[in-house]
């Protein structure tokens, strides 16, 4: 019996899909719109979140196109062209941050995978889960409507749709520009973001309760898969940080509508206070974005290299450390705002402390690869790219955390490059890898691996072309949020713009691959990759109640109990090895993960 899994595309024996699964459990529209099934809710999120990604991506292309050359492009009237650009970059940022990145992994994959990984039938509060989704939809409608109609407003010169004045303040809404000087639809946009925040809070609340209370017998904290540790840490941040955003946006609305004056210096307020409030949420928010990605990478690397994770405890606890430390560093976005040198020093020191747990994770992942048995499938490719790109993103964070260099680099393209490396190069790559990884489980079909690899490489090349050069531009002084620029910077912008178009090519290839896989892909086995987390112990797609037979809880990374199926249909459990592993882990008591 070969110990290698044969290429899944050349399976000799055709598989049959399970007769009853969650997708055909009830096929009416109402059963989808009012579903309480966490799997269906995850799919609903997938549709809306990917749509948001498309919108955000379109505006990225538009703004990069404007930046091809100095001078106005989309309009002969300079003022109109700059206004359009300002709406584009604001829209790109707000849609991507609020409607895409923050919900993406938790709401789609967390919802789908987390309960199954716990051997549970659903999340703790299924109805709250559905409410979360609809709150997301409503908030997104506010935001998207306002932003898109605002672009129409700028183009045409007067509001076309009721209330549609768009948003040109940047996704950060800094006062006093957003409260007094901007004539765009700040109220409507802020309201949208406010509502979206509640979706995030309720999802986090749900996951916290689920992880605490719905773990099966035998799954102690240190026997949970790392994806759950990561999602749990994310949920902690969602629950504690997002309410501060809620009150910040509420104050912004009050300031703008009623001129209450909390941020208005002429009547006793303080514009920098807004920045403190805003970043107190928004810095932990970036950890909401990246921690689930870390969890995904832990799963992808272990499964596709068939080796137990190296340093399980360190990775698990580093997620919690990052979540907690992340609350203490918001001031590093404000080094040049005029806050005291003492505050600057404290924020800088604590910022460095977050680098350690992040670095520890990366080292542990690389150490996991040693001595492993790597299958360079599409998800694994994305995971390896993640390691490289996150390394760059994280290391350039050091330049920005250091006080002296940050004074030079703040609000330049260096910052833009840094956060795109962590948000796109890291988080997006992990997200796409995760979708490929769990695609067979979610849809019961396989995607074409070769096309997936091509898409990954194209995206990787395009991404680096776009953003690597921006570090250079920023170090040379190119400021952010500029619609036009001195001629000397043009070559950097042109390289970036070409790279952006290459990224969109990669995205189209990936989307194409998913659509083809969804409708015409080969049937997927229960365990195509040979992972041992509990979702692979059930059928693909899973039944409505997730498990036909309650799963045995063991070490989530005990990959060796799985062997390639002699029929070529993925991996199957070897009963003797499984029994041996179960006996061994029961002998360990709890905390059996290495």
């Amino acid at each position, binding site marked *: 019996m070969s110990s290698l899994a044969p290429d899944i595309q050349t399976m000799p024996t055709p598989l049959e899909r399970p007769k009853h699964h969650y997708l055909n459990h009830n096929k009416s529209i109402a059963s989808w719109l009012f579903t309480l099934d966490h799997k269906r809710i995850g799919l609903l999120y997938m549709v809306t979140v990917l749509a948001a990604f498309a919108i955000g991506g379109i505006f990225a292309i538009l703004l990069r196109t404007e930046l091809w050359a100095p001078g106005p492009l989309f309009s002969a009237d300079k003022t109109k062209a700059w206004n359009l650009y300002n709406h584009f970059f604001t829209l790109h940022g707000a849609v991507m941050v609020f409607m895409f990145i923050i919900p993406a992994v938790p709401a789609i994959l967390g919802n789908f995978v987390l309960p199954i990984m716990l051997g549970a*039938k659903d999340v703790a509060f299924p109805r709250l889960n559905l409410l979360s989704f609809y709150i997301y939809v409503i908030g997104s409608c506010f935001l998207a409507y306002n932003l898109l109609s605002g672009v129409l407003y700028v183009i045409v010169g007067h509001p076309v749709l009721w209330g549609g004045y768009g948003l040109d303040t940047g996704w950060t809404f800094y006062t006093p520009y957003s409260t007094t000087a901007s004539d765009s639809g700040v109220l409507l946009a802020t309201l949208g973001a406010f509502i979206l925040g509640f979706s995030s809070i309720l999802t986090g609340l749900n996951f916290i309760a689920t992880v605490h209370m719905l773990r099966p017998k035998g799954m102690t904290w240190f026997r949970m898969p790392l994806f759950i540790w990561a999602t749990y840490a994310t949920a902690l941040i969602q629950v504690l940080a997002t309410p501060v955003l809620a009150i910040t946006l509420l104050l912004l609305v009050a300031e703008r509508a*009623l001129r209450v004056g909390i941020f208005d210096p002429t009547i006793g307020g303080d514009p920098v206070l807004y920045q403190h409030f805003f970043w107190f949420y928004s810095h932990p928010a970036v950890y909401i974005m990246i921690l689930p990605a870390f969890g995904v990478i832990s799963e992808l690397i272990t499964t596709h290299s068939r080796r137990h994770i190296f340093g399980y405890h360190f990775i698990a606890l580093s997620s919690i450390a990052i979540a907690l430390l992340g609350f203490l560093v918001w001031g590093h976005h404000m080094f040049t705002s005029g806050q005291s040198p003492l505050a600057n020093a404290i924020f800088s020191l604590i910022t460095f402390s977050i680098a350690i747990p992040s670095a520890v994770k990366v080292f542990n992942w690389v150490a996991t690869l040693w001595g492993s048995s790597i299958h360079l499938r599409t998800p694994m490719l994305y995971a390896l790219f993640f390691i490289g790109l996150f390394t760059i993103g994280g290391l350039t964070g050091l330049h920005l955390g250091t006080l002296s260099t940050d004074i030079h680099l703040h609000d330049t393209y260096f910052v833009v490059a840094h956060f795109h490396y962590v948000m796109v190069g890291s988080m997006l790559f992990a997200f796409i890898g995760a979708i490929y990884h769990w695609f067979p489980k979610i849809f019961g079909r396989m995607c074409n691996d070769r096309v997936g690899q091509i898409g990954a490489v194209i995206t990787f090349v395009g991404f680096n072309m776009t953003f690597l050069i921006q570090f250079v531009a920023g170090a040379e002084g190119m400021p952010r949020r500029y619609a036009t620029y001195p001629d000397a910077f043009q070559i950097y912008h042109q390289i970036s713009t070409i790279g952006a178009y290459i990224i969109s090519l990669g995205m189209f290839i990936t989307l194409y691959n998913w659509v083809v896989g969804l409708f015409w892909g080969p049937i997927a086995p229960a365990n195509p990759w040979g992972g041992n987390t509990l979702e692979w112990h059930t059928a693909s797609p899973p039944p409505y109640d997730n498990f036909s037979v309650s799963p045995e809880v063991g070490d989530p990374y005990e990959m060796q109990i799985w062997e390639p199926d002699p029929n070529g249909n993925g991996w199957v459990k070897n009963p003797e090895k499984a029994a041996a592993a179960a006996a061994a882990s029961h002998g360990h008591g709890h905390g059996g993960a290495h």
Partner: protein
Amino acid sequence: MATTASDTHGHDPSPGHDAHDHAKVGHGDGHGHEAHPAHLAHHFDTPEQQFGTSKLGMWTFLATEVLMFGGLFVAYSVLRHNNPEVFLWAHKALDWKWGAIDTAILLASSYTMAWGVRAAQLNQRGLLMFMLALTFAGGLGFMGIKAIEYEAKWRHHLFPGKLNVLNVEYKGQNFKAPLTAEQIANQKEHTIDYVDSHDKPAGGEHTMPAKQESGNGESSTHGDSSAEVHTPPVAHDAPPVIASVHAELIGTPVIDPHEGTANAAKIKPPVTIPGGVKLDALEPHQGGHAIVTYGMLHTPDQKKINAFFSIYFMMTGLHGFHVLVGMGVMVWLFIRATRGEFHSEYYTPVDLGGLYWHLVDLIWIFLFPLLYLIH
């Protein structure tokens, strides 16, 4: 918008979920059907697990509420630190007696709520309903008093923001234009009645807002009120006095370029307003602290009274909204209690509603001294 978790932490089977599923699909948890109470959701193994999960969810939700109000408390601290005299003066517009009654009502309603939870645990349906009604009444009383207080503000035109009567520059007038004597005389009707009697200034029942010319120290074309201005008038094209250059002032908020350092205590001598109304220096309050009147506020601070009213309305408004939501929860619990849905085996919604109400009470306990009892 706040959502209460208590209405979604229940257990009712809902559309799309076949209530028989959990029996049909073997899920290997060994439940006989009779051991499966109706209120147990399909994804929980035992009622204890479900109850514990609901409580955990509720406490997490309360944590989010604490953080949300926490932001407001931080804003309060910053505004108060930057504008201490404004807070000393402006809080007098609130009557601490009403605030104290509010506090007592909420504390009492928390007590009745806790009693209600106990009643549910002991299967005392009638008592539970009565306690819920009392709690609701407490909330109603609280909101009623809020209405009285807000109405008083309305009457005195003490709104937040630009509608506030004391923000002269927001009344459509040029910021730099001094008021005419006639305009000042017309301000007479916009005074603050001191609702509590022991704070009446010696000068009489009403104090006039002092209306010197606008605060830039520019030369006024009328009245001798310019003589009382804190800084000498500066010709408009003279170079401004640049604030002294010390490292410790880096980033310090400076209110007015023509001033010296910011936020020094400023109590002014008696001022004369055109029209002959005189404001005396006021006697100390019985409690031993000085009364600060509007006229005694340093001129730039007179434009900053928003610092107090804005945070007052934001905090009490958001809190009041939460009280209203809580009252809605009480009504819903009452209706369900009428239907006999709560008993010793299952009283989760009552428990969770109680937790929410206690939080609302707790927030008020902090709001009251911070807003009403400033010394």
